[in-house]
């Protein structure tokens, strides 16, 4: 397995780059990654700009997606199946979960194929490859912002006043971003080596959707299992969002289980990605 290390030779101002086969992949080289932060923003800017230039609906799509889902769920789960909704009107209940969920699902789909989609870049230009799945994950935040604005509007419409807990929502957003990134790193690296991974993503997203308390409250999960339920990091994200925006139902220790699960998933993802990184240009 071949890699490179960066070492700064003290006696000259010019950095010396050493290219050699052996490198421990646990050297994350985050400082080196920071050098390319401008590129990250450019790639995000490109993805966002291109998407909005191409789609006729443009911004509207970012809002229509969660709104239409909310409509369907409100009819079938909220009204007909009479799903409990933690004392909040079902549409808000579903929408506040759909906003982070759809960010996650879209980021997952985009990032898992990101390396293969950028094969031209990977074969011709050098930059830390982590930037690629990262840019997919960050680009999704733009859509998230528009959906979030609609969420605020919806809350006012239903007369729900935000409480002090609303200041916690950035923490839960960060949790969602971390989960999307973790999953994206694993899947994008796997997809380079096993091309049919891309086809499993829709199934994975659906399965994950039902394992996450989007259309139902996590209170339907018996108390003794709720800690294990938190192993799904998106459960923590969604319940955390509901808590911070609507001020109801503190998710409890489940949050910490989710946070721990994401930390492990993310660390593992970064290490696996770095391990496989040296093979990308050869097999992508």
């Amino acid at each position, binding site marked *: 397995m071949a890699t490179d290390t960066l070492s700064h030779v003290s006696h000259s101002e010019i950095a010396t780059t050493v290219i*050699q086969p052996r490198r421990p992949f646990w050297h994350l080289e985050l400082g080196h990654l920071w050098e390319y932060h401008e590129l990250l923003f450019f790639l995000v800017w490109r993805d966002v*700009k*291109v998407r909005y230039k191409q789609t006729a609906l443009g911004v509207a799509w970012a809002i229509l997606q969660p709104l239409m889902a909310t409509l369907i769920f409100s009819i079938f789960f909220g009204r007909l199946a009479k799903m409990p909704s933690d004392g909040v009107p079902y549409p808000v209940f579903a929408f506040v979960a759909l906003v982070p969920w759809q960010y996650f699902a879209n980021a997952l789909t985009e990032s898992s194929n990101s390396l293969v989609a950028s094969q031209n*870049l990977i074969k011709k230009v050098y930059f830390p490859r982590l930037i690629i799945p990262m840019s997919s994950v960050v680009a999704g935040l733009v859509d998230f912002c528009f959906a979030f604005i609609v969420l605020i509007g919806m809350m006012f419409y239903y007369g729900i006043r935000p409480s002090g807990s609303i200041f916690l929502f950035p923490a839960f957003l960060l949790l969602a971003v971390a989960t999307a990134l973790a999953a994206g790193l694993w899947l994008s690296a796997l997809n380079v*080596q096993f*091309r*049919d991974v891309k086809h499993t993503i829709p199934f994975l997203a659906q399965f994950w959707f039902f394992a996450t308390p989007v259309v139902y409250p996590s209170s339907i999960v018996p108390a003794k299992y709720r800690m294990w339920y938190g192993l799904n990091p998106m459960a923590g994200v969604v319940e955390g969002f509901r808590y911070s925006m609507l001020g109801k139902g503190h998710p409890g220790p489940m949050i910490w289980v989710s946070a721990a699960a994401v930390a492990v998933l993310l660390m593992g993802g970064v290490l696996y990605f770095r391990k496989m990184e040296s093979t990308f240009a050869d097999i992508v």
Partner: protein
Amino acid sequence: MSSTAIRAEGLSKRYTLGDSAPYKTLRESLTSMYRGAARRVRTLGSGAQKKQSFWALRGISFDIQHGEVVGVIGRNGAGKSTLLKILSRITWPTEGRALIHGRIGSLLEVGTGFHPELSGRENIFLNGAIMGMRKAEIAARFDEIVAFAEVEKFVDTPVKHYSSGMYVRLAFAIAAHLEPEILIVDEVLAVGDLAFQQKCLGKMSEVSQAGRTILFVSHNMAVVEKLCQRAILLQDGEIYFQGDTEEAIHRYMHKMLAANQAEGHTFDLSQTTDRRSNVGKLLKRVELYTGDGLPVREGIRLGSGLKLKVYFDLPKPTRSFDVGLGFDSMFGQRMFTAHSMFEPDRQTAERVGPQVFVCDIPSFTLMPGLYTVKIWLDINHALADSVSYAARVNVFESDYYGSGKVPWNGVMVLKHNWYVENPDRSIVAG
């Protein structure tokens, strides 16, 4: 040590040969795991089945000092692009290592990352960022880039509306303004029209004169000769020669010809694989003779006669067939083409089977040097067989003008006379 820009120590790269695609699917992996286990049980004791591999590069070592311009030449598949990819950190060496002092800018392809929906302006920033420039740098050079590419009027139109020439000019313009300490360039000058290529060459000279180090791969020997002080000749993944540019080019040309079986004046083409044959290996051999009919050994003298006997085969009876000979200089420039269709006494009888065409050049007036001969056979106005480096002609100096002085300048000699005229327009003899 600090004046060395790039030091390569035993760089090697191995690729495993295998299935059509280097990647797999999970399904394949799982089934092959099962099959592999079953096979191992069945063939216990017999030798392990090894995956085939080949070394794209083996033991490459060289030093490039700051400010040097070094060319990398070699046949297709010699390992040039692999070497550049390793130095650009796109792929990794299997063995060996390289030390690089300074910021590297790699031009392995122009227009990487261009998005057709974005405008020229947007692509300049995007592509610049991809190539490693900071936003501030790009902004500072924006006007220069647009001027170099000559796309001022179209800078806000989506790039998908650009002509291919504009696209390439813009891509190169961005890359040309990179300004890293070390520039690694892979054949990207082979784009655009002649005027643009001149511009690119000019920019490269500028960059080298500014004291930057350049490592440059090209098939265009004229450019390599012009820009590079040193050259590295790669052959089958190894360094065949490194040193003076002219000698490296010379050895490269010799190597190209060595693919044919050559014995003095006879060049056997029947086994040559490096050819384009639409009908078959019809060109059999070519023999070189001087004007007096003597076999050409070392070469011919400037101005001497040259006869080329081309032996070929016509598989089917045909009336319309012609042989072409192209004489190319060491730099790949076509100096002269001889074609049997230009023969005024051309016979058009129907022929079949082995043929011999003789091209009789009364006086070979190309300047001293090494020329390679490309031979092709047209049947019914369509190319039937062609060999690129079929033969070589070495031209030596001679007193062509009979003046006691040997011509040394230019690409050819032409018979001419000088007269003296009196101011009153009468000619003075002698």
